[in-house]
């Protein structure tokens, strides 16, 4: 199956979580997904939501208007937070005529066109539901049989169900099934739905780090080979800030953390450098040595 989608990266991926961007750009085309970048960068409106709801909705609708310029009707949004913000904005604007009129006018002033019909995808449902597990499985050339992994799907991509999210809110399975499609084992664990804390980095960084550290510590005691994430904020907390999180909770943390697309890339036998694996700050060598053995 081949699909062509526009892609909106948001802020976090473009500004620091380069490994996610690299691995998405590398892996998705090999699974039959052609990516088309938008004309401009833009914030989805997430941090603005707490400041001014209307302005956040405007930013989200501007993202869809930029996607509209590509002529494509599907938009990939690999960030959980952006995916949620845009989904909420889409619904709010569809339901509120007054707000819609204002936003349509604002977009027009910039020569942009409002289009709420664009379907918003995340990496998880694009791979699981569109390319499907068979398609992903077929592309695997190096099954990662030796690995026992935990998944962290994140909060905003599965909640809240009324909005239409990519997986079940209380028992998400799609990411685990994708992990299994690479040949690895996916384990269940008590803390699976616990939040990474990233939003609290804006107001209570110590608490945010404690939340992230606590989850990594629990996973370490389970003896898994690594944690798989698919959101740049979760990646930032569990990987980039793992050391800091360890200091905050007074624990020695050394759990390999990688993006779902990095894991898939390994199973597709793509060079590690192309997947940005040198950028992960957690000790991913531990995991890599297991699959090269």
């Amino acid at each position, binding site marked *: 199956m081949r699909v062509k989608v526009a892609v909106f990266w948001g802020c976090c991926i473009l500004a620091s979580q380069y490994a996610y961007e690299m691995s998405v750009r590398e892996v998705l085309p090999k699974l039959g997904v052609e990516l088309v970048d938008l004309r401009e960068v*833009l914030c989805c409106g997430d941090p603005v939501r707490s400041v001014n*709801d209307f302005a956040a909705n405007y930013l989200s609708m501007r993202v869809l208007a930029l996607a509209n310029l590509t002529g494509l009707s599907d938009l990939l949004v690999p960030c959980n937070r952006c995916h949620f913000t845009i989904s909420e904005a889409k619904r*709010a604007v569809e339901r509120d005529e007054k707000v819609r009129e204002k936003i349509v006018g604002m977009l027009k*002033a910039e020569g942009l066109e409002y289009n709420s019909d664009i379907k918003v995808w995340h990496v998880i449902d694009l791979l699981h539901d569109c390319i499907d597990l068979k398609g992903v499985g077929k592309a695997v050339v190096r099954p990662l049989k030796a690995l026992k992994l935990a998944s962290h799907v994140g*909060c905003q991509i599965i909640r809240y169900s009324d909005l239409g999210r990519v997986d079940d809110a209380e028992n998400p399975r799609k990411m685990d099934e994708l992990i299994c499609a690479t040949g690895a084992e996916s384990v269940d664990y008590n803390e699976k739905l616990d939040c990474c804390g990233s*939003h609290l*980095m804006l107001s209570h960084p110590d608490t*945010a780090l404690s939340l992230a550290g606590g989850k990594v510590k629990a996973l370490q005691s389970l003896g898994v080979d690594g944690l798989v994430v698919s959101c740049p904020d979760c990646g930032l907390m569990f990987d980039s800030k793992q050391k800091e999180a360890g200091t905050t909770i007074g624990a020695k943390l050394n759990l390999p953390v990688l993006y779902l697309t990095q894991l898939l890339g390994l199973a597709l036998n793509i060079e590690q450098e192309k997947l940005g694996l040198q*950028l992960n700050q957690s000790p991913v060598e531990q995991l890599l040595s297991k699959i090269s053995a």
Partner: protein
Amino acid sequence: MAKPNLESREKILRKLRGRELINCFQCIKCTSGCTALKLLELKPHEIEKLVNFSFVDELASSDIIWTCATCLKCVQRCPQKASPYHVIVALRNLAVEREAKVPEAFMKAVSQILETGLAEAYQKVTTRKMEACDRESLKLPEIPAPKAGFQAVFLKALEER
């Protein structure tokens, strides 16, 4: 002494656009599963109750509304569709309108967006072997900032209440 302010409550209800705050029957499902309960003592059911009793002014100037981790578990689990998360967002918006205490990072994000379109600045990162990298050295494409007209429109959007 805290005083109820019916007008402020009305303001929050308008921002909630029909979400049924009044239906909250204090089952405490939201607080039981709240990410910020243990470390920051956020109790979403209390926020619901205080808004229903019109003690909105105190909340809008309180630090507690900035402790929400936005994990959305309360929205998911509320049997009455009273959604504490959305009430907290409405209270945050009101706090900004009233120029109450707002964590600096939020306002910084807004000015960063005005300047560059993105809420964060591009960062130099290092590999595990401490080699410095940026988008260019990683051969990642350059995507332009928003066109000149964006700034004025975004400023206008920020004036909406």
